[in-house]
């Protein structure tokens, strides 16, 4: 894992189970359609919680080569490092968008196997790391 244990998750987006990171999706009760993230508020009750597979295949990718404006709260200016963004198919029905680790971006090819990991992408006002989910090529996993 690329995150220290004391990092604060940015939101309730994933569970760490048996050394794997599993994204939390919702399955709509009405028709079984999957959606990520799990809806909040009144919509939440209309969905079952589903944990997505921890691995999948790269569906598309790009690289964010300039620092985004707010509400992005990761490193900017001299601290900014380009990061890849990918869509990864997890399971038969759903494709998830996320950041890719490590930076600088690894070489990516559509169809290659990817794994869900945790990534500290920013630090809060107290200097505490903020953590989100990310994808990483499976070859780079030790």
């Amino acid at each position, binding site marked *: 894992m690329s995150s220290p244990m004391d990092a604060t998750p*940015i*939101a309730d*987006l994933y569970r760490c189970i048996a050394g794997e990171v599993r994204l939390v*999706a919702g399955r709509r009760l009405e028709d079984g*359609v*999957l*959606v*990520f*993230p799990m809806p*909040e508020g009144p919509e939440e009750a209309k969905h079952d919680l589903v944990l997505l597979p921890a691995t999948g295949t790269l*569906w*598309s*990718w*790009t*690289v*964010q*080569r*300039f620092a*985004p*404006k*707010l*509400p*992005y*709260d*990761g490193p900017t200016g001299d601290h900014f490092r380009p*990061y890849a*963004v*990918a*869509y990864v*198919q997890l399971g*038969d*029905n*759903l*494709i*998830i*968008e*996320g*950041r890719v680790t490590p930076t600088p971006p690894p070489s990516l090819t*559509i169809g290659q196997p990817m794994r869900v990991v945790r990534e500290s*992408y*920013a630090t809060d006002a107290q200097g505490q790391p903020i953590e*989100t989910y990310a994808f990483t090529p499976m070859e780079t996993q030790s």
Partner: protein
Amino acid sequence: MTAVHIVGSGIHQFGRSEGMSALDQGVSACRKALADAGLDWSALQFGFGGSRDGGNADAVMPRLGLTGAQFINVANGCATGGSALLSAYWAIKSGELDLGIVVGFDKHARGSFNPDPKRWGLPAWYGRTGLMLTTQFFGLKIQRYMALHGIDATTLGRVAEKAFRNGVLTDHAWRRQEVPLETILGSEMVSDPLTKFMFCAPSEGAAALILASDRKMRELGLSGPVVRGAAVRTRLPGSFEVFSPSLQVAQDPSPTVLASRAAYEMASLGPEDVDLAQLQDTDCGAEIMHMAENGFCADGDQAAWLVDGQTALGGALPINTDGGCLACGEPIGASGLRQIFENVQQLRGRAGRRQVADARIAYSQVYGAPGLSAVVILEGQS
């Protein structure tokens, strides 16, 4: 149902207008459209208008005349201009109204847009972690399309090369210098596979059009292209759209495909009947995908089309004859109306050095977040 004609058109220079607010530019475009039709503001029964960053479009009224006419502000992302035109078209076609104006204007800060996730019904983390950028979406979408359909980076570059070449010939364009293909391909990468010159930039500008019923047009002794087909459509559950934390594996046709089919059907025309087209080209990838989504070619044929110059001026189907968003920039409220302004100039034989010979059917398509498309098909009146 009555036919709907565009009897007046006006544009305020796209790019940067120092010392002029977006509203000033909108008023300027309205005055030009009125002068073009030889009409007074007081003759108009209604207006529809939109602006993203330039304030309320109905703020043109105190400047042009508080006549008591109805005016409705339209907000539909990048498709705002197209949606304003559709609203006016429906108002006249229904028989309720006879004569009105549509206007769009904008003035954006430099650099990328920074949308607020909450306004899009998305969670805050999506914006905070740096996933909510239109530029990323454009890169992600064309990257997948290129892999599926064998399009290469040189093909992307040729789209921009053509846009800047057309911009040289266009008074209202922002970028008016040719850029060599090697410079386009070698410029700074922004969101792979798209380089700096393959993206349009937020800019400034305004456009206005005056629409009339067939009866009113004749009564006033005016003329202008007729709207043969016009449709706006939104996304289906399985379409690949901007600002999507997740997508369905089972893909649906895009809203552009839906709007295009509806407009062709309304017009009783097909892509083979079209003489020139303005297609949403926020980036080179968008123009390539929109060539296929609007029915002009099969997926993957774009590479050969561009090598052969089919979409250049003088080709079989000139696309983005005024340089499109790539050369004009994208003032969101005005951009869709610029496309139609350009088609009107082409159909009236006023396009000067970029005139498409014998243009009769002109097509325009504008795409907006979070997944809608507006298509308008015009026929010139000989």
